[in-house]
């Protein structure tokens, strides 16, 4: 509870005596490139294979002759939109972005760079952390959209190549009973996850004390705590929004 209280105080400190909008916008843009563009490759690879594996495994389990093959496409789409794209992408990003944020801030802390900002009269939390959180909340939904597309595409390629279903059956399946709200739900989740991952990782990194060993520990804690928070938030979002 004490740590949670400190976390809330930390979040509050992001919003007081911040820098000008121009500086915030520039910093956010820089962070968006680091967080977003640099994560496209890993998100692309993970999503494509998850889609492919989902398609193959659903096909393997659907053995009844009464269930049309297009159901495989339908199930891949539903699983991708509702769970795999937002949640798995966020867990992957918790590992990549979360550890990067915690490690970067932790190193800045132990090398007195954070103190240097404070001595200059700059709110270091606001200057360093707020752009990371905003950039994450902007970039995660875009990465999740990319993930959705590649995951469904991966399912199409895997299904066609393995002979589990034809391309036309797959396309018919992914067009069945489409609920646009599921996309909105996934994007809301991605924004929530982005906030949790970036803020928890920043908190861990910003409060690092000690040396290189503690920076490593902060990165590990950032990833672990972020993933747990994502999974809890996933459950709460499903309960509240569906």
């Amino acid at each position, binding site marked *: 509870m004490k740590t949670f209280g400190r976390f809330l105080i930390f979040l509050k400190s992001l919003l007081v*005596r911040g820098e000008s909008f121009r500086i915030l916008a520039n910093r956010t843009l820089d962070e968006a490139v680091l967080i977003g563009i640099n994560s496209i490759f890993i998100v692309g690879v993970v999503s494509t294979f998850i889609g492919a594996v989902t398609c193959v495994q659903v096909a393997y389990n659907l053995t009844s002759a009464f269930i049309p093959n297009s159901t495989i496409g339908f199930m891949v789409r539903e699983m991708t939109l509702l769970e795999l794209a937002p949640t798995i992408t966020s867990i992957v990003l918790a590992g990549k972005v979360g550890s990067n944020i915690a490690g970067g801030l932790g*190193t800045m802390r132990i*090398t*007195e*760079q954070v103190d240097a900002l*404070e*001595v*200059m009269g700059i709110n270091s939390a606001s200057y360093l952390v707020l752009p990371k959180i905003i950039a994450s909340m902007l970039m995660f939904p875009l990465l999740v959209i990319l993930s959705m597309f590649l995951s469904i595409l991966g399912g199409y390629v895997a299904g066609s190549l393995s002979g589990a279903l034809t391309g036309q059956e797959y396309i018919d399946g992914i067009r069945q009973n489409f609920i646009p709200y599921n996309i909105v739900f996934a994007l809301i989740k991605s924004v929530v996850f982005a906030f949790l991952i970036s803020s928890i990782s920043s908190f861990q990194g910003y409060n690092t004390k000690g040396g290189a060993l503690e920076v490593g520990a902060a990165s590990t804690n950032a990833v672990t705590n972020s993933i747990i928070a994502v999974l809890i938030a996933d459950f709460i979002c499903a309960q509240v929004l569906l």
Partner: protein
Amino acid sequence: MIEIHNIHKSFNGVKVLNGISGIFETGKTNLLLGASGTGKSVLLQCIVGLVKPDIGSITYDGKVFTNNKLDLKQEIRRKIGMLFQGSALFDSMTVEENVEFPLRMLTSMSRGERKDRVEFCLKRVGLENAGKKMPSEISGGMKKRVGIARAIAPNSSYLFCDEPNSGLDPLTAIKIDELIYEITQEYDITTVIVTHDMNSVMEIGDKIMFLHKGNKLWEGGRDNIMDTDVKELQEFIFASSLMKAAKKVEEELGSLEDITSIADNNDETAAKAENNTPDSPKGTERYLRTNAGGDPPGSPDMLV
């Protein structure tokens, strides 16, 4: 001028600063001297606002810094330049960008004005050709110089240096000392330096405050530090100079073992020295002559 009054600070019940008071004068290099763990850096952090003192007040040119409104604190902080022990340069920025950073953040200078100021500051610290390099590509001494350039870039009125010589070879250390001293004189700023280097004390110590176990035990200048009768300061000076003097003393006494045994028995020897003639040497000079048989550390030979 910076005035500190009755500064107390404890961490987890352990008292680190015990009622420190003093004045750091403008245009002078004010040194906080003491062994490791005596509270020098904590005092410095209290003065710049990185650590909040439990009790006590700090004023910058009459403006109260402690327990004041955030806006006023920020106003004072924007006149502060600080050189950190590890330089604390921003890794992701070039040398030029590091020096430009406080100008970009704290002033309304145009891009051209900032560029001119950066060039001037880098030239002043002798790094006019290193602007495009990254901090990882320059040496420790150069990092310190960049740190000084960054600290003075926004026309700071106060310069704080936390062990500016740490990790540097003696020659570079002297150059950094000289640079800080010259800048202090040139811009008439208030400079406070945390150090345990006796070379710095004798080179640039206009005003020296000696701390021991969180207490201020002595205050003075480099001219009278050797006359001190404070035992802890005498021991500090002796210990600081011992390594540098060891070679010379070895020649006079025979071996390093002799020096060690003398240092071990210094209390007994010092007591005997008390009974010497009234015109025996004063303070640290007497201490050193009595214990090591060498010249006092202030003598040029021992401080090079």
